[in-house]
């Protein structure tokens, strides 16, 4: 490999059709934060899925990593306008987790160890397009990127892919989360530029 990175024009051309409106491609992985980075040892980690009736299921780290693992390679898009192509992750499909709890609710609130929340329609989490991931580029996910485990929902802006996730709660109403209650869009589709509340 030479030390030269490919020309910007060349890369833009190669990724034609994969860059949503208003985005620019980046090769770095910017860290966006809304507070101190929590450090959650895997032995203390768990994920709980709770239905709207209170039924719940909890996985320890060992139990979660023993579930069937998937290795998605996806493009991610941040509302702050960067997009990163072909990011490689490993984790568990959310279908696998959510189907273990019976629910008729249409929405889910993801809750994180740092108090962060984000709201999602259930249909955006099922159908093999959303994951709980614990590794990035072949390495354990670093705390500043949401490790030990975060959501990965690549078809929505990346604030929906909650870092340090610890719970998924089914809700009958669409309950705005941390940024959604402060002006951000409830859905966050980058292809429709759903950045702010009324976009």
């Amino acid at each position, binding site marked *: 490999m030479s030390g030269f990175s490919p020309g910007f024009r060349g890369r833009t051309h190669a990724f034609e059709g994969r860059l949503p409106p208003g985005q620019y491609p980046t090769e770095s992985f910017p860290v*966006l934060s*809304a507070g*101190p980075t929590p*450090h959650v040892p895997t032995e203390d980690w768990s994920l709980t899925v709770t239905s709207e009736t209170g039924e719940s299921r909890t996985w320890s780290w060992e139990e979660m990593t023993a579930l069937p693992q998937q290795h998605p390679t996806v493009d991610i898009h941040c*509302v702050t306008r960067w997009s990163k192509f072909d990011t490689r992750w490993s984790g568990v499909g959310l279908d696998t987790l959510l189907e273990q709890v019976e629910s008729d609710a249409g929405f889910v609130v993801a809750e994180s160890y740092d108090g962060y929340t984000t709201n999602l329609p259930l249909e955006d989490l099922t159908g093999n397009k959303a994951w709980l991931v614990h590794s990035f580029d072949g390495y354990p996910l670093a705390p500043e990127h949401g490790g030990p485990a975060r959501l990965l929902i690549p078809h929505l802006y990346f604030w929906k892919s909650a870092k340090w996730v610890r719970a998924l709660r089914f809700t009958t109403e669409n309950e705005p989360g941390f940024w959604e209650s*402060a*002006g951000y869009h409830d859905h966050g589709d980058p292809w429709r530029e759903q950045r702010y509340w009324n976009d």
Partner: protein
Amino acid sequence: MNQLSVPHLDGNVLAGPLADVFAVDPTTAWHRCPTCRMPSSIGELHVYGTGPGPGLTGRCPGCADLALRAVAQPGHLWLQIGNGAGAFRFPLPHSAR
């Protein structure tokens, strides 16, 4: 839960965005944390999310509890005080971003 130190700035970085909707210097506004009871001004808050965004999060310098969120969008500033839900969207003067 241990916390790693990550970069934050002091609350004076909120002076710019908040000055567009306040008649007085907002960084001198005083606050007593409902969680740890530490008094601080907005200028003393620990502010995360500067630079890349998506919004600014001001936290208590004593216990990191949420004190305010500010999200600037073209033509508007969303401001949420405290750690509940329910932000206010202020119109920005047309000269401001």
